[in-house]
């Protein structure tokens, strides 16, 4: 799904490369919400999603001069954001598993659950499946594009997607049955 016409986005990238802070700010406001949403749906933590989205844009600023402006900006940003979100989710899962009882300090209260069952079902997926589902169904990339973004074989992407969707469907059907 395009959120900005390709020509206009290319113009903004060109101007940002030439030193226009306004163009950079405009690119940011065009892409931040989707980048944040994608990050949140992978990490399920508002503060971490904010950091991940911010890191994505900072990486974009750092690599701006090397960016090939014939290519779209969005996928490049999404690739950075989803990969960083995935890294965070993996680390957090590991940390929670091995260190839950080790903290001397009271952990912060968990963020308020919003978005209902879909968010909850998505959260139950392993981070790798979550990332693939978000790339496919929020950001609407093809399995081939996702394979390239995550540097995975296409078959792995397809299997993660299938397993993820099966579990989401199970959750949805269970809700439907419970709701009858």
């Amino acid at each position, binding site marked *: 799904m395009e959120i900005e016409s390709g020509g206009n986005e290319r113009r903004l990238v060109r101007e940002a490369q030439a030193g226009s802070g306004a163009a950079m700010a405009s690119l940011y406001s065009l892409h931040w919400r989707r980048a944040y949403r994608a990050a949140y749906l992978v990490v399920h933590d508002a503060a971490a999603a904010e950091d991940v989205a*911010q890191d994505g844009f900072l990486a974009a600023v750092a690599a701006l001069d090397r960016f090939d402006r014939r290519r779209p900006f969005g996928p490049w940003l999404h690739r950075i954001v989803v990969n960083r979100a995935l890294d965070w989710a993996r680390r957090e899962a590991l940390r929670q598993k091995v260190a839950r009882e080790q903290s*001397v300090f*009271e952990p912060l209260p968990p963020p308020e659950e919003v978005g209902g069952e879909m968010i909850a079902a998505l959260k139950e997926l392993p981070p790798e499946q979550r990332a693939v589902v978000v790339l496919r169904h929020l950001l609407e990339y093809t399995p081939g594009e996702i394979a390239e973004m995550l540097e995975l074989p296409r078959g792995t992407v397809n299997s993660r997607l299938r397993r993820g969707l099966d579990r989401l469907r199970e959750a949805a059907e269970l809700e439907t049955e419970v709701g009858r």
Partner: protein
Amino acid sequence: MRNDSLNRALREIPVPVADQAERRGLQVVEAAYAEREERQPSPVRDGRPALPRLALALGIATLLMALLLSPAGAAVRDWVGDVVDSSAPEPEPGLSETPGGGHLLVQSALGPWVVQPDGSRRLLGHYEEASWSPRGLFVAAAQGRDLSAVEPDGTPHWSLTAAARVRTPRWSPSGYRIAYRSGRSLRIVAGDGRGDHLVNPATAPVAPAWSPVGTPELAYVNAEGQLRIAASEKGASRSGAPPDMAGAVAGRETRQIEWGADGRLILEVSPAGLHLQGMRLNKLEGRSEFRRRTALALPAGATVVDAALAPRRPLVAAVFTHWRSAGTRSSVVVYGPNRREPRRLLSVPGSLGEVAWSPAGKRLLVAWPGANQWLFLPIGRGEGRAVAGISRAFAPGGRKSSFPQVEGWCCP
């Protein structure tokens, strides 16, 4: 579940977004972009004509209009002014005023500086440490074994020479006493330089903290890591040292204590935690008593860089560092009176430094050495500001300098 319904659900499900998250990110991205621009060869140096200012202004105005009129305009209308301001070139040397007013005391490699509200600065001399007197009329400054009282214009008032190196001088709220560490011992001297006496011969390397209410009392950490309270008057005990009261074990890692303005809390800061020691003034005996000690909840994996109690309210501002494989991140949070849900004001890549409250308790100054900036963050509504070029501002003559340390922000 159909794919299109999943697509729609993922697009439309409300997700929690922290207050001001988008704006915070924009400020950080703009700061990074400005740094990038500073590193780029300028058009003037390349021999090409610079971009005309009029065209730049028109471009910004066009963007402004586009943002305000776009569907997202409503959301960005509140902060679009910042977009324009903070993407402008950073002023040189940058510190043209102190947002929020007041006088800053800043320690650089050259010595302490007093920064006026209009940004003008004066180097006090070649002192290694300094702190404000309660009303900002004097500065207690240390150099080697010397402790001096210096006027803010740099005029020395008096000086004494201690037996060992002088550290962490702290003026009492009444202005009548200065506590300081000399070697491992803790001592008190009157504000006029007379009556120097020992409080404790073996203390931890932590600056003492004066009680803001009642009879002058001094909190300090002894060599065993125990938080103690000493009366400031000598001669009340057999040893000749002031009477002294033990509190909880603060911990050997404690590196900072601070007594809150209402006298009811002492904040203990260590890399691994933040603790609040409850205090109560026994009005009949005229001395403080220890109450409950509580730990503040830290974000998972966070290390405390610095923390400070607000001058008028029971708020604690803290700077945390989070080590991650993608690099270090730092955040600034404020704990409210219930201590439960700290509010995050800022999260940036890299390391932040010290935090200081403005005299009115409405702003925070946070040092960002990696970006060579000071950040002035409002606690309530208002615009945050970043001031660049800080190292250069305290290195006259263009000499390279390390990033300076904010020692105090005075006075109401």
